[in-house]
């Protein structure tokens, strides 16, 4: 492991931008969004306290992309290396989840794989806990231990940069003039900040913490009325699935271009009425409550059973996006209550 110190972010990011395209967080209202970094443009370099508003999947699986052409075939173009700064641990975990789907051995998505291979990941520690953050309910933490090329921790007087891959170590080697050694005590300070954030996370979500496995809670609750209850206020805007960094449904459609035909790939949402409808008119999820149920079952039961990992990182973006006020934590809490009631009744009956 290679750890170095730098007192300002700009020279570090300039060095990254000198090597490849770089995207950095930019303040937009009370959130951050990603914007391309132009070292000469006088852009303000900001350290985002928590995750950026938009999901990291945008970089790997764009909202809209060309997937195939006709009659001449189309293969993925060479993707140039690019870097993203300010990704948080939840973002890295969402990439791990998307990898399972798009880098499956037998059916690897070549567009995703090409971008993934060329993405230089610069993560950073969370220095605050957002209103909707609940990564700790899914064994998350406010900082990353794996999954990054470089990780940035904000400490007094500067930043500690740690390499997490060969690419990251090479970068530090090649730009060793920029960095200095980490002064004694700073690593301890970093760990204290990390602990502090983790404690805040635990406090914030204490009321939602359950000793039962979320998978079991949700599976038990698949017939619960809670989904129909939530459906009463849902306006089917699909915002929850768009901003979700792990939702990966897409829609393939064909269209005409000037000299060729194109097959396009576009984000889709299981909240959409006709999502599962077939040509004959059948639709297994006509009712909105059933679609919300499917979203929960997919995230917490089906995906886990298939890939061994929850399809939720607790980033809370869906909570921020939900205009109806649905909070995933509240739904899980309700399901947990139903789960425990049922178990209590069962235990009583067994006595």
């Amino acid at each position, binding site marked *: 492991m290679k750890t170095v110190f730098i007192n300002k972010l700009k020279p570090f990011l300039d060095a990254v931008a000198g090597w490849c395209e770089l995207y950095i967080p930019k303040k937009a209202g009370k959130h951050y969004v990603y914007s391309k970094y132009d070292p000469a443009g006088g852009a303000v370099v900001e350290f985002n306290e928590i995750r950026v508003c938009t999901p990291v999947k945008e970089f790997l699986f764009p909202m809209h992309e060309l*997937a*195939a*052409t*006709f*009659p001449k*075939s*189309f*293969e*993925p173009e060479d993707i140039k290396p690019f870097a993203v700064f300010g990704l948080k641990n939840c973002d890295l975990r969402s990439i791990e989840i998307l990898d399972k*789907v*798009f880098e*499956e051995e037998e*059916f*690897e*998505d*070549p*567009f995703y*794989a*090409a971008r993934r291979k060329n993405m230089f990941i610069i993560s950073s520690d969370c220095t605050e806990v957002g209103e909707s953050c609940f990564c700790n309910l899914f064994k998350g933490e406010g900082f990353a231990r794996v999954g990054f090329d470089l990780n940035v921790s904000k400490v007094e007087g500067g930043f500690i940069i740690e390499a997490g891959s060969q690419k990251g170590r090479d970068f530090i080697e090649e730009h060793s003039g920029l960095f200095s050694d980490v002064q004694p005590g700073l690593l301890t300070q970093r760990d204290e900040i990390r602990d502090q954030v983790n404690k805040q996370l635990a406090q914030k979500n204490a009321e939602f913490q359950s000793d039962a496995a979320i998978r079991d809670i949700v599976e038990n609750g698949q017939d619960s009325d809670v989904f129909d209850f939530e459906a009463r206020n849902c306006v089917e805007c699909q915002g929850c699935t768009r901003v979700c960094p792990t939702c*990966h*449904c*897409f*829609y*393939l*459609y*064909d*269209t*005409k271009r000037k000299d060729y*035909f*194109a*097959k396009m*790939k576009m984000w*889709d949402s*299981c909240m959409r009425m006709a*999502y*599962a*409808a*077939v*040509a*004959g008119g*059948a*639709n*297994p*999820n*006509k009712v909105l409550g*059933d679609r919300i149920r*499917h979203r929960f*079952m*997919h995230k917490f*039961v*089906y995906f886990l*059973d*298939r890939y061994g990992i929850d399809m939720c990182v607790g980033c809370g973006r869906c909570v921020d996006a939900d205009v109806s006020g649905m909070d995933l934590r509240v739904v899980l809490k309700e399901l947990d209550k139903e789960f425990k009631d049922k178990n209590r009744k069962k235990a009583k009956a067994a006595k």
Partner: protein
Amino acid sequence: MNKNLYQPVNGEIIEIIDESPTIKSFVVAPEDKFNFKTGQFVELTLPGEGEAPFTPSSSPAQTDKMEITIMKAGRVTALLHQCQKGQKVGIRGPYGNGYPIDDFVGKEIYIVGGGVGLAPIRSLFLTLVERIKDFKSIVCRYGAKTPADLIYKDTLFGSWQKIDGVDMKLTVDEANDGWDGNVGVVTTICKPMDVDIKNGAAVICGPPIMMKFATFKMLEFGFKPKDIYLSMEKNMSCGVGKCGHCMIGKYYVCKDGPVFTYDQLKDYPDIWD
């Protein structure tokens, strides 16, 4: 760089056969040899218009061309029905598991089909007939709305009736003057003594409502849920278990199916919708 799994192989429609007022068979010749297992499906693209999943109705032994039987049911199929010979198309696949033919060896195979559901069954039937000695018997029960809606009429009334080891019966929901066969839904010609249930495998394919009642009939006869094979139709789009549209519970119909045993699906709600 990996092969682009969304890129179809180019092909051409070289023949169109009218099967019924709403069903046509398209003979498609891909530019390259195309291998598939019976029961697997392909995504057929009408360039610039759209793509839809179909299970080829021809034998997999034929690799230079395949037949795809299509009912006019939605936007893409309506456009396909307007196509002429020579139309360029794209083919992706094959996708999914197909029928587990080797598991059928030594068994009595009870095939129940309805309407355009005979398409995948035809491919299965042709595959089974090629090695008919491996199976104890092949019993086929097929129904359509009216005599005009029966597909593959030439072989259905002709050569298929004469194959040794095949017991084929037909029915229509509504008869007209020329029909002297059975009248009633397909389950009315299914009898428990048709096959040795204990050594049997039931294969069902047809419209959802027919599959539902045929499945219940098979259960009533004593077939075990694990011996009832269903060819499921859902909104398969990517074909490779990613886009999410075809999920039945934890299964992706495109990747884990389209052939499932009833045992795999029975606990999920709305499988017939």
